[in-house]
């Protein structure tokens, strides 16, 4: 057996937008074990629910993550609405769905850029992020914000989107789809992309199941888990199937995310064609009393929002199980047996969000 070496990886590393540390145990250039260390940015946002009332906490929930901020707000609001038995207007459900799918598009495009950057394909990185700007422009036009929107509220949404703007969004989808087809052809066909991702970090279907993987990490290994199929928001009215792959490698995880962007475009078009006229918010009276688990499909996978209320305006507890938290064990498994040079790519392929993880 070769002599074992421990190499510290992170918390500062060129491919890591956020801090995580791994002790990589190597034999020659091969990783045999990885031991994680987090805790560099723990913010205690769940604890803040004891100081902010249940209405104010919507703004805190949105700040758990800068990428899927809308879906954090939505997950929290859905929990409180379920406890209070509030039925939000159909139009609000559709608007939430449109913003949620736009969030998925911008998250996956951001990730594609980071992946390209990680293996030194700078022009591909820039094109991915240039396309993402188009999505952020839609956010800005419809919500006023590009990162934190503050449009989701308990009982519905705070802003409507006019039919004229919805038509413009539809036209933008055509442009984005065309540019995305050109962009992703590189990811699908380029030999250097395949060289760095094909067969790298294979996670079998059984292991993905046994390690509790979620989102594209699980779907790329053949597990069709997608909480949208359970019909929250307007998804119950839309036609779609979870996108899966069976290879379980980094290339499959890339493919699943790319196909999910195209799927989001389709879902947005469907939502725009079906959105009814009407109110966007139900008036919420009183304080919540009870508990509820909400499960929402974020870009990185399933998030679980648990809220426990006591009849006052302050909740007893909000607990958020984020997708990255669920995917860390699967990451550690895929690192075993990989080359040291592949570690950055593998960490990226779970699309880690440490801010979410540490909340």
């Amino acid at each position, binding site marked *: 057996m070769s002599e074992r070496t421990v190499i510290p990886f992170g918390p500062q590393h060129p491919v890591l937008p956020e801090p995580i540390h791994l002790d990589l145990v190597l034999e020659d250039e091969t990783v045999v074990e990885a031991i994680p260390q987090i805790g560099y940015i723990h913010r205690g946002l769940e604890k803040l629910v004891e100081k902010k009332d249940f209405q104010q906490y919507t703004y805190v929930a949105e700040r758990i993550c800068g990428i899927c901020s809308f879906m954090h707000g939505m997950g929290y609001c859905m929990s409180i609405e379920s406890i209070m038995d509030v039925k939000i207007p159909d139009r609000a459900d559709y608007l939430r769905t449109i913003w949620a799918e736009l969030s998925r598009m911008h998250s996956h495009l951001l990730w594609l850029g980071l992946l390209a950057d990680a293996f030194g394909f700078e022009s591909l990185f820039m094109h991915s992020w240039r396309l993402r700007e188009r999505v952020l422009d839609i956010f800005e036009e419809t919500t006023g914000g590009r990162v934190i929107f503050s449009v989701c509220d308990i009982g519905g949404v705070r802003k409507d989107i006019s039919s004229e703007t919805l038509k413009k969004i539809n036209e933008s989808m055509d442009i984005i789809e065309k540019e995305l087809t050109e962009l992703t052809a590189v990811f699908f066909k380029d030999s250097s992309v395949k060289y760095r991702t094909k067969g790298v970090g294979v996670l079998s279907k059984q292991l993905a199941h046994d390690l509790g993987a979620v989102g594209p990490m699980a779907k790329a290994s053949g597990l069709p888990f997608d909480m949208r199929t359970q019909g929250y928001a307007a998804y119950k009215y839309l036609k779609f199937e979870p996108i899966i792959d069976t290879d379980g490698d980094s290339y499959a995880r890339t493919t699943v995310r790319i196909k999910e962007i195209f799927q989001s475009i389709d879902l947005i078009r469907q939502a725009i064609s079906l959105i009814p006229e009407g109110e966007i918010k139900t008036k919420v009276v009183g304080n919540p009393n009870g508990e509820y688990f909400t499960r929402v499909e974020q870009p990185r996978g399933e998030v679980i929002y*648990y809220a426990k209320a006591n009849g006052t305006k302050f909740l007893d507890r909000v*607990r958020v199980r984020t997708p990255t*938290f669920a995917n860390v*064990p699967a990451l550690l498994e895929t690192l075993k047996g990989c080359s040291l040079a592949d570690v950055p790519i593998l960490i990226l392929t779970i699309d880690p969000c440490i801010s979410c993880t540490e909340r």
Partner: protein
Amino acid sequence: MEQNIKVIQTGELLSHAVSLNHEGYRLVAISATAKEGIELTYSFDKEYDFINLRLEIDADTEVDSISPLYSYAFLYENEIKELFGAKIRNITLDFNNQLYRIPIETPFAKKEEKA
């Protein structure tokens, strides 16, 4: 979504976890809520069938780790141990309250004063 929460005794946790594991349920979360003691909720899923096991323990009660059954439970258990002070024994990878390395001891165990 159906909310299936089953209250169990501390000593029943492992047998329930073994049954669920054999039936193919995945562990999807372990949550804790500070009360007079600690309320622990173990959430499992099998093809969207969502089951929760609930334990209500006092601060001194020791709970067996389910990480020998669900290896990835170690992250949830370390988090609860460090933030709430729950006494969880036999965690397969125990960070000894150094997962987040927060200078305040068990910061989630006590309620804050309202604003």
